Each structure stands twice: as structure tokens, then as C-alpha cells.
């Protein structure tokens, strides 16, 4: 049965108690304002679709900032221009909700231009109502991005000059060029014929979201009699006769009968599922293995290690493997990559601590162990080594010798040894072998297990192990 009574839709509050002034019955809008007409169409559609409980309206900045006075739905009041971003956030976490983003022309097309384009381009499942009245109403009639050329506003007192202010933005046309939007139409909130079309468009735009089809955008040309200095009937005539010349009415895109609806399903996980999903359930390690530490000479204990070389030599991995192995042997460990001013000229370095006691500073400014794999690193860090410390350097690449006499120096032709094994890439592993072999700080067993944990490509395991062993053999 067709509706036989047209009355205030039940989506509106009976009394506008949130309105702070004495009048709790009327809207705050000026006589003849298009916002009220659009509100009524939206309220009616929500009622007819039976979705009132699910609706969350995003209240913009502009004259329509007080949507929450009127609509008996959920509301979020947001910053100027950000409605589509906020709408994205709430819709993504509550896909069952029906999110209506309502924006004026300054809000949507000027300050929020980026947010609307990207929300549309992501195909957010939201419904956007864009009120275009060619002016900033709330702030007192300044130019909007949709102000027509030649139109006088308080900030275009001589009329909008396209050479100074550019052209009005045609948002519906712009949005329609994107792949994702499902439905884009421009309507006019004016005479009976246009209101009938607007009513249909509003319902369709919300229906698309209810059906899970995607992004819908309705631009509504709307009268601002106060801002334009016209009486309401003249203002609506002006829309029909002047505004629609620049902003033609009609459907700019509609793929609503082609797109497949999206079904939103929520994953429910148990605590064990969660641990597994984020990789902290212990993975393949079912029981904690105990490692027998080597006996380490006092001078090699609690090393503060700096490792440096060219980017690509596996410097960071070298440090990580030592750190992981140290942890397996139940030392306190830390690893810090080159970062900040030391990271210049394509060199990489990292700081590693392996300590019997809690590590205070993870930074190694005065290393007790320096492992260097290129000449610039040796030149840069040699002088920082603590007296009595030790320097390991790759003498197949570094053609100078360290000059310090107060430190131990161990030359390891790591790259050459690696090359002989079949890949220069494992020179870093040779260095690990040399370091642990010479000092005994870590066992081969923990290093091998650390390698298994750190190196994801298992086909390198065998070669890496041989390289570590070759390094150990060289120094022992």
C-alpha cells in the first residue's frame, strides 16, 4: 500500500533536545535552506529501509555541523574536511553499520579534497551526501571551491575571477572518473521534478551500502538564500537556471547492478590463535634447548661489538646471528643497526652487546671488538677500539693494516675464503666463524641454530655452516 500520510519521518527526533536554544522544534537553518530538504529525504530513506539502529552519521564542519540535533541515529562530529576519513575508520571496524558522510562544499571540495578522493578511490562502503551551495554559508558567505565564475562573495567582492581563484570544482564528474565508486549522481534540491529525482537518488545511494556494494556519492545543488541574498523561490530558480548550466544534473556513474555485494565476516580468534598468528607461540621450537657455553678468557667476556662494512656484505645479519646465538646461550643481548650520522657513503654498521649482566646502553661507542669488512670502516672505527680490545678485518678486501699497537689484530681473508667455498656472499659467515673460533664467546652449535632461525632461505644453510666452520678453522 502506498504511503497515504507524508509526515515528519520517525528518523528525526520528536523534540530536538540536543539543541541548546529554547526552540526545540525547528531546525537552526535559515528559511528556505536546502539542508533541511536533504535532511528530510535522508530521514525518510532511513525510515523506509528500516536501518535506523545501524546508521552512523558523520557530522561535518559547516552549517550541517548540528546533524546530531535532528537525526535519532549514532553520530560522530568531526574536524573540517575529514568526514570521509572518519567514515572510513568507523565503517572498517563496524562493517555492519550504515555510515553516512554528509559534507558541504568547503568541507568536501576544499579542505577535505584529499580525503574524499581517496575514500572514493578505495571504494569505501559509505554513502556520501555532498551539499553544493556555491558558498561558505556558516562562516558568512565566503568563496567556496564551487562558487561560480563572476559570483560575488565576501572574499570575491569583485566576483570570482578565474585568473585569481580558478574554476569551480565539479566534484561529481571528478569522482565518477575513478574506478571504485559504484554510483555518482548530481541532483538539485529545487522544484517538484528535481525533488523527486533527488529523493530517488538519496534512497539508491543508501541502498547500495545496505546491499554491500560500495561507494555512493550524491551531490545536491542546494539553495543558500541568505548567503546569496535572494528569497527562497528565487534562490531555487537560480539553481535551475544558472547553477545547473555549470553543474549539470544527472547520473555520472552507476555500476550498481554489475558489482558483486561484499559479505563482511569477522574472524574470531582464541588467545592461542592470536599468538600463532603474530608469530609468538614459539613456532617450531617446542622446547627450550640448553647450550653448554665455552670457557671464555676474561678479556673476551662481555664483548661490546661494532661490525662495519659495505651495504650488501651482510653486516647487519652478521650482528643479528651473533645476537641470536648469544640469546640462545642465555646471555643478555642487544643489536642496534647503523642509524644516523654513521650511515653514510653506503657503509653499514651495527652494535652488538653480549653480556652476562643486564645491558645498560645498547650503543657501542668504544667497542671491545671491531669486525670490519671494508677499508673505510677500518679507517673510521680503528681509533675507537678500547685499548686491549680486538680487531678482526677482512684482509682480502682491506689493503692496509691496522696501526694500533695496543689492541689484538686478527686478519681474516674472509671474502677469499668465501669465494673458495663458492660464494663471496658468505664472507660474513666466515667472519662469524673467525670471531667465535678465536674468542670462544659463542659455540658453533648456538650459531648454527641461530642461523636456522635467522636465515629464511634454507638452501643457504649448508653453505653458511661450511663458511662458519672455515672461519673457525682459519683462526684455530
Amino acid at each position: 500500500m502506498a504511503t497515504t500520510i507524508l509526515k515528519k519521518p520517525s528518523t528525526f527526533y520528536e523534540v530536538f533536545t540536543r539543541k541548546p536554544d529554547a526552540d526545540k522544534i525547528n531546525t537552526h537553518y535559515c528559511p528556505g535552506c536546502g539542508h533541511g530538504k536533504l535532511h528530510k529525504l535522508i530521514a525518510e530513506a532511513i525510515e523506509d529501509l528500516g536501518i535506523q539502529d545501524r546508521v552512523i552519521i558523520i557530522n561535518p564542519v559547516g552549517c550541517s555541523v548540528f546533524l546530531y540535533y535532528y537525526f535519532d541515529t549514532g553520530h560522530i562530529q568531526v574536524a573540517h574536511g575529514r568526514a570521509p576519513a572518519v567514515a572510513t575508520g568507523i565503517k572498517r571496524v563496524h562493517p555492519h553499520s550504515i555510515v553516512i558522510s554528509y559534507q558541504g562544499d568547503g568541507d568536501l571540495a576544499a579542505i577535505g579534497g584529499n580525503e574524499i578522493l581517496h575514500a572514493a578511490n578505495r571504494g569505501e562502503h559509505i554513502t556520501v551526501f555532498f551539499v553544493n551551495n556555491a558558498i561558505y554559508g556558516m562562516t558568512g558567505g565566503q568563496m567556496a571551491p564551487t562558487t561560480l565564475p563572476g559570483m560575488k562573495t565576501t572574499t570575491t567582492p569583485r566576483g570570482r575571477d578565474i585568473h585569481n581563484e580558478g574554476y569551480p570544482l565539479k566534484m561529481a564528474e571528478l569522482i565518477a572518473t575513478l574506478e571504485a565508486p559504484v554510483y555518482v549522481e548530481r541532483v538539485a534540491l529545487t522544484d517538484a521534478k528535481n525533488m523527486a529525482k533527488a529523493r530517488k537518488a538519496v534512497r539508491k545511494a543508501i541502498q547500495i551500502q545496505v546491499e554491500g556494494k560500495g561507494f555512493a556519492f550524491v551531490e545536491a545543488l542546494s539553495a543558500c538564500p541568505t548567503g546569496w541574498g535572494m528569497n527562497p523561490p528565487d534562490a531555487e530558480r537560480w539553481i535551475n537556471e544558472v547553477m545547473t548550466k555549470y553543474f549539470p544534473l544527472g547520473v555520472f556513474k552507476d555500476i550498481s547492478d554489475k558489482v558483486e555485494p561484499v559479505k563482511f565476516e569477522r574472524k574470531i580468534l582464541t588467545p592461542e590463535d592470536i599468538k600463532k598468528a603474530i608469530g609468538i607461540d614459539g613456532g617450531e621450537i617446542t622446547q627450550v634447548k640448553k647450550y653448554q657455553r665455552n670457557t671464555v678468557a676474561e678479556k673476551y667476556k662481555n664483548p661490546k661489538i661494532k661490525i662495519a662494512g659495505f651495504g650488501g656484505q651482510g653486516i647487519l645479519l652478521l650482528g643479528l646471528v651473533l645476537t641470536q646465538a648469544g640469546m640462545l646461550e642465555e646471555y643478555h643481548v642487544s643489536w642496534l643497526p647503523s642509524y644516523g650520522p654513521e650511515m653514510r657513503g653506503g657503509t653499514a654498521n651495527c652494535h652488538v652487546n653480549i653480556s652476562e649482566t643486564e645491558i645498560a646502553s645498547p650503543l657501542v661507542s668504544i667497542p671491545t671488538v671491531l669486525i670490519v669488512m671494508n677499508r673505510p670502516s677500518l679507517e673510521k672505527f680503528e681509533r675507537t677500539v678500547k685499548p686491549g680490545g680486538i680487531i678482526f678485518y677482512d684482509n682480502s678486501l682491506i689493503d692496509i693494516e691496522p696501526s694500533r699497537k695496543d689492541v689484538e689484530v686478527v686478519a681474516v681473508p674472509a671474502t677469499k675464503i668465501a669465494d673458495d667455498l663458492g660464494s663471496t656472499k658468505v664472507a660474513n659467515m666466515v667472519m662469524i666463524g673467525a670471531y667465535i673460533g678465536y674468542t670462544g664467546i659463542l659455540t658453533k652449535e648456538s650459531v648454527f641454530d641461530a642461523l636456522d632461525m635467522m636465515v629464511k632461505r634454507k638452501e643457504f644453510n649448508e653453505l653458511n655452516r661450511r663458511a662458519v666452520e672455515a672461519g673457525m678453522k682459519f683462526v684455530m
Partner: protein
Amino acid sequence: MQVTLQKAFVKIDKEQCKGCTLCIETCPVDVLKISDRFNSRGYHYTEYVGDGCTGCGVCFYACPEPGAITVYKRGAIVDEEVLSEA
């Protein structure tokens, strides 16, 4: 008691009317007029001349205020007291 309306009519809540005249402008049968009197907020409000409404509803959608206009179409079932206002 409820009755079935034999003819359409439009009810205007003068206190919710801001006198924008958009309803008068759009009415196809010209049965709305602006009152000489003011409502409590100082607006000349729209009045139904009392006869001739076809119940087409265009004034309802023309009106920006949520509850200023109610349109009762022919055949609507309403409380008797509503009829008395017609």
C-alpha cells in the same frame, strides 16, 4: 475513533513554518497562501486555503523543516481529531 479520509488535505504547523514560501511556490493547485499573521517566532506562515488539496505531496518535500507540513492523502486512515483540523 479512526476514519478514512474522503479527500486529501495538508496540515501546516504554523510554529514550525519559517515562511520561506517554497511550498506555495511549488503547489500545483495553488491552495497554499502566506498568512498576514505572524507565528511566535515572527514569521508569516503558510496556510492551507481549506479546499482543493490533491495530496500530491510536493509541498512536503519542498519544505525544509522536518515537521512543518503533513500531507494526508485521500484514503488515509486517521484519528477523528485529525479530520476535525481539516
